[in-house]
């Protein structure tokens, strides 16, 4: 169907556009209602901390006024909305609950993997607790609970609040499919990150001042570390919308990063480690640094 036929069919608006607008409208309403229904069900009291009136809901534009500096990261993961609620106690630190509706469980997982330091406490689908901050993801939500100042009592309240919020989110999300394509043997599960923005990649692993892998909102990226025996490696998988883009990115990586690569796409770096690249259809596999050539090739051969 071409544009003109759609225009005729729907009297001024293309059918596709009409359906898209309706879908977008419904999607936004669905998200808003879901976050609002979650909001209505949130605890008013946690231990001795009381919820303050005046919850705020931010969208992808107004979020900049709330979390100056970090907002771009959330935008890079397609954040839809953020509900913020404060819990206070007389003479004690505030606790700030932020629930981010990321629009998809993949992006909820992705923003969770942006900060993976800390210990696991068994809240939501995956979580981390570190000084002053608990984060977890569940379904399409990423939840952050932040203490203005650290104390034992505040941490207990944060954990209790986390458990209650996780309990209110009934759904369960799936991790991005590309994660399951990482080679299994030697994968350090707690190092896996998912992203689709070049600055986020550079945040975790500085590669280049330019976007030499052509990472965009349309690409899925998994970054992970490996340990096999006493050897280590770091690997990147990038899934492109088309095989042609994957091919072009492979050429760019070879051109800008390992122009000295041999016929198998491997090069010995000046620090004694190996980098290598291979492609299969839409998927580009890059070993950024491996302790040996054998390990680099092993990883490339075992992409699922």
């Amino acid at each position, binding site marked *: 169907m071409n544009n003109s036929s759609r225009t005729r069919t729907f009297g001024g608006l293309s059918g596709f556009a009409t359906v898209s607008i309706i879908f977008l409208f419904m999607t936004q309403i669905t998200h808003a209602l879901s976050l609002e229904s979650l909001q209505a069900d949130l605890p008013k009291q946690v231990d001795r901390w009381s919820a303050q009136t005046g919850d705020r809901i931010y969208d992808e534009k107004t979020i900049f006024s709330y979390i100056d500096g970090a907002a771009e990261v959330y935008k890079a993961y397609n954040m839809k909305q953020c509900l913020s609620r404060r819990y206070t106690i007389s003479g004690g630190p505030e606790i700030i609950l932020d629930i981010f509706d990321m629009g998809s469980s993949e992006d909820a997982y992705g923003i969770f993997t942006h900060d993976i330091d800390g210990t696991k406490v068994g809240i939501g689908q995956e979580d981390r607790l570190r000084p002053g901050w608990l984060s977890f993801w569940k379904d399409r939500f990423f939840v952050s609970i932040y203490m203005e100042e650290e104390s034992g009592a505040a941490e207990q309240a944060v954990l209790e609040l986390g458990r209650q919020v996780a309990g209110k989110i009934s759904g369960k999300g799936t991790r991005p499919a590309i994660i399951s394509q990482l080679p299994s043997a030697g994968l350090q599960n707690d190092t896996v990150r998912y992203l689709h923005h070049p600055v986020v990649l550079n945040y975790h692993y500085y590669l280049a001042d330019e976007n030499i892998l052509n990472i965009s909102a349309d690409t899925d990226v998994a970054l992970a570390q490996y340990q096999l025996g006493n050897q280590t490696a770091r690997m990147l998988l990038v899934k492109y919308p088309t095989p042609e883009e994957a091919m072009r990115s492979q050429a760019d990586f070879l051109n800008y990063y*390992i122009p000295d690569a041999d016929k198998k796409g491997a090069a010995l*770096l000046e620090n004694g480690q190996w980098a290598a690249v291979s492609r299969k259809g839409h998927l580009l596999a890059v070993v950024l640094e491996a302790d040996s050539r054998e390990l680099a090739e092993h990883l490339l051969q075992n992409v699922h």
Partner: protein
Amino acid sequence: MTGKKRVITRRDFIRTGSWAVMGSLMGLPLAHRAGGQTAQKSRVVLIRNQNATEGHGALNPGTVVQMLDDALTVALGAEDPVSAWRKIANPGDTVGIKSNVWFRLPTPPELEKAITARLVEAGVAPQNISVDDRGVKSNPVFKRSTVLINIRPMRTHHWSGLGSLLKNYIMFVPQPWIYHGNACERLGAIWQKPQVAGKTRLNILVMLTPLFHGVGPHHFSRGYTWPYGGLIVSTDPVSADAIGARIIQAKRNQYFGEDRPISPRPLHIEAADIKFGLGNSHPDRIELIKLGWHENILI
């Protein structure tokens, strides 16, 4: 990516061995400097006092203001603070003091007041002085300003790597997000806009309790600040930021016990030097003068 554009990669740092040495910061030779850039070194004064703050807490105003006077005098090669401040502004000037209000680590009001008082002592009319951050675009004093003074605390930043002096001018443009691309690399372009170009006579990077690491949406934990008790003062914002960045990097390495590069790499500091010609970022082109407390100076 197309063509044969010169691209700096991690490989370049590995090749030069500067990754480990410099923690990724300003370690490459400046092969592509902006045209017209000064060949002179930039003078930067780092002054510290262990009594500048009460640990992580309250600032000792008398100590910090004295630090500012001393640093400025040396930075400008003046005989005394009075003549130093007169080199910054004269009775005919209108001065905008670009501050930073981020509530977790703002520019200390005591310093804002002290700068204002010094400017008045130098003969600037009080009505021709204004301190502002997010309102600078519409502030009448800033709109007719002949002189800008740039002051802010240094902190790590999720998107630009560092909240720096260079980044502090992002409020002068109506659409800051335009400059967010590639880790805010093009922040230097803002300094070439008519409302700010050529007006900045003093840059003060507040290093009293800097933030060296941040996590989560609020990007702040008191545990990632430390009482460094410093001020970095220079007429060159790029040099001041470069020195501050090296201190933050050194603190990260010390705290984490490993090389933990500032992430993302603060490209805007090098770009302000190499692409926009605003100053010097490379250590070889900075004359660093250290005053005061030297313990754990990290540089």
